[in-house]
């Protein structure tokens, strides 16, 4: 391992005060639903932590995740944490290119074998490895190679976590998530399109503090950030309860900030921290801008039945099935009904007139 300055020293160099640093630690602790007493523990751990080596692989992606994490308009502590890690390979950000870049990756893997963190953004094509290659190496091959000696993997963004947009129907590249390929390493899914930056720093802080991964939900996401759904934390929730809904994006309801459920908001089934941490330095989150939640942190959110269809609406057109059922039912019903009617007519023909002599059984009378 390199003899690097500690994280606190790096932050100091960047002009972050101790007070600001402690504030960040407290915020991180609260975001991760740790007891308040944990803030000094985090601070202490971070102060002493050495810059971990991080290898960042970008596969089938749009660079949106990287943009989200690096393009905050003012420098933030989250951003600085990034400065504080030893980002040994990130082909979008690194200065080196070509074989020099690949050599840097190999060097980092060798130097920090078993200890480095692997961050992945983008999905992995499996239909034909040639769909996406870096330096002539297919994504699949590179992932397996780098993952082999990683301490843990952070799948950043919905593409890496769940397949994302490339995985959307009809998925021409056979895109899959990291967890579909690597099954023998701890994987943290930081889903979102893009994910909230503080989630990544939170996970890193947790890793640096405790040396372990935070508690995850059933989709491998840090529970501290993905434990609540948007709907439950939404400031427009009272309008939902009162049955006040915007019917279109420019009606009175929309202007009054009513609930966007009917306009397709996927808040009720979306687990993310947007409604509490918000975006752009806490400015707002999509619903505050007047647009329903797309559910971007959930698997298959592209195929959840249309962004602008209400959650309770069918996710596919059921008209054909319904029409088929009706027509088939009408045909079978008509056949069955006509059979019954024929049977009934037969009984009329079979009817023998009943006289008073027929009211008793043969044996008597």
């Amino acid at each position, binding site marked *: 391992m390199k003899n690097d300055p500690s994280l606190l020293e790096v932050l100091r160099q960047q002009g972050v005060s101790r007070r600001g640093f402690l504030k960040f630690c407290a915020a991180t602790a609260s975001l991760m639903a740790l007891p308040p007493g944990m803030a000094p523990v985090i601070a202490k751990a971070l102060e002493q932590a050495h810059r971990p080596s991080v290898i960042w692989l970008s596969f089938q992606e749009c660079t949106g995740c990287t943009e989200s994490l690096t393009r905050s308009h003012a420098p933030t502590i989250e951003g600085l944490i990034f400065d504080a890690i030893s980002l040994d390979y990130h082909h979008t950000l690194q200065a080196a290119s070509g074989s020099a870049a690949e050599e840097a990756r190999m060097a980092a893997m060798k130097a920090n074998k078993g200890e480095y963190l692997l961050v992945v953004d983008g999905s992995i094509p499996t239909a034909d490895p040639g769909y996406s290659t870096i330096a002539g190496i297919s994504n699949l091959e590179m992932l397996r190679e780098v993952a082999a000696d990683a301490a843990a993997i952070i799948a950043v963004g919905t593409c890496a976590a769940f397949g994302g947009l490339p995985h959307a129907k009809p998925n021409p590249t056979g895109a899959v998530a990291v967890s579909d390929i690597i099954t023998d390493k701890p994987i943290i899914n930081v889903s979102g399109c893009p994910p909230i930056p503080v989630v990544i720093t939170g996970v890193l802080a947790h890793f640096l503090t405790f040396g372990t991964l935070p508690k995850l939900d059933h989709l491998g996401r840090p529970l501290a950030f993905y434990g609540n759904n948007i709907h439950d934390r939404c400031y427009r929730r009272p309008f939902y309860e009162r049955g006040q809904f915007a019917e279109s994006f420019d009606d009175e309801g929309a202007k009054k900030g009513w609930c966007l459920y009917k306009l397709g908001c996927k808040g009720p089934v979306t687990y993310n921290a947007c409604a509490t941490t918000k975006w752009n330095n806490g400015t707002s989150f999509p619903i505050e801008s007047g647009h329903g939640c797309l559910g971007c942190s959930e698997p298959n959110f592209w195929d959840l039945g249309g962004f602008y269809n209400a959650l309770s609406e069918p996710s596919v057109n059921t008209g054909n099935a319904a029409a088929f059922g009706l027509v088939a039912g009408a045909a*079978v*019903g008509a056949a*069955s009904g006509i059979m*019954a009617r024929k*049977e*009934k007519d037969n*009984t*009329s023909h*079979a*009817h*023998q*007139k*009943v*006289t*008073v*002599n*027929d*009211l*008793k*059984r*043969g044996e008597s009378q």
Partner: protein
Amino acid sequence: MSKATLERGINALKEQIDTPTAAFFSSCVNCGLCAHACLFYTETCDPAKTPIHKLEPMRRLWEQEYTLTGRIRKWLGLGKPITDDELEQWSELAYQNCTLCGRCSMVCPVGNDITYMIRKLREGLSAAGHAPDGLIGATTRAVKLGSPMGVTLKALEAQAKHVKEDSGLDIPFDVEGTEYMVLLSSMEIINYPEYLQAIAKIFDQAKKTWTISSEAFEATNSGIQIGTSDIAAELVQRVVDAAEKLKVQTVISPECGHAYMAIRWEGPNLIGRPFTFRVQHILEVLDELREQGLLQVEGVEDGRLTFHDPCQLVRRGGVIEQPRNLMRLVVDNFVEMKDHGKMNWCCGAGGGVSAIEEAEEVRLKAFNRKKKQLSKLHVDGLVTACANCRIQIEEGLEENDMDMPVIGLTEILANHLVEKETGGGSSA
């Protein structure tokens, strides 16, 4: 000679199942409300007497024969076939424990006309040979002798003679072209001859022409009670033939509930064509006369009186207001029972029950419902318009040591007719 068989019974039942029946069976959710409307259940608390349960074999037959799922089940050997034993068992429920009173049909929340279906079930039971002996006997007498009680024309003529002696009024037989043709029930001829005299007096006062056909004077129709349309049609046909032969305008059904049902509502459907004459119940006729001012009465009854609604006349027949109009004419202190009119409780003996010997015990138990209604009212007497109800109520009151006269409405009216200046006869 053909005889009753299970096959004939099932065939008859299948013939009876129609669109309403299918809709009714599709709608029942076993809520049990019909039980609480049925006096055979309320007075015995025997759940087997729940009206819709009385139809179980018919429901199964419908499912097995007329629905796709039922046919598939039958095909797979999962259906339970209808057996003779089962029909035998259900015969007791459908004949002895049902008066076809129709109260269940009024309360069913999904709107099932259960009575309509029990009438149909009897069609199958009788064709299968599971009708009670009492009803078979009555039906046989009705067809062979012209009266379920074996009352002959001679007996009627004897009563006519009494009327003549009593009131000086002639009973016109077989007069062509009269306005009215009067039918009588055997019970009226034998047990309540006052009715005939009352009719004679009322028409005499109203100056209406009327007649009795010597070929078809019997109004009761055991065919609809036993549930055999072929026989019921034969009995209706006799009346139709007589009415058309005498060219009368209106046939009057007497104070008998099911006779009215038979001739007024089932009649045209039984013979398969509309009638060429009108059919009215005597109370409808009397109320019309009252409206026209042709029913002149004087004086009122002293006591506190109530009116018992015969089911087939009121709930199942639609003659609801007429008896009340007529009651008010001569009764000052007229009180209604709780649940009066179309929701009144049955006497417990209609629908052929009175003709079934084995039903005597349950019939008198069922009367407890009427007894409870009456004991709340504290009345001095009861008026009704059905000879069958009248006999049951008289018997029930006696059984329960309740002393109370039971009178026919027509008779009461006749008692209050304004006496003519001239003309003989003494009248009460």
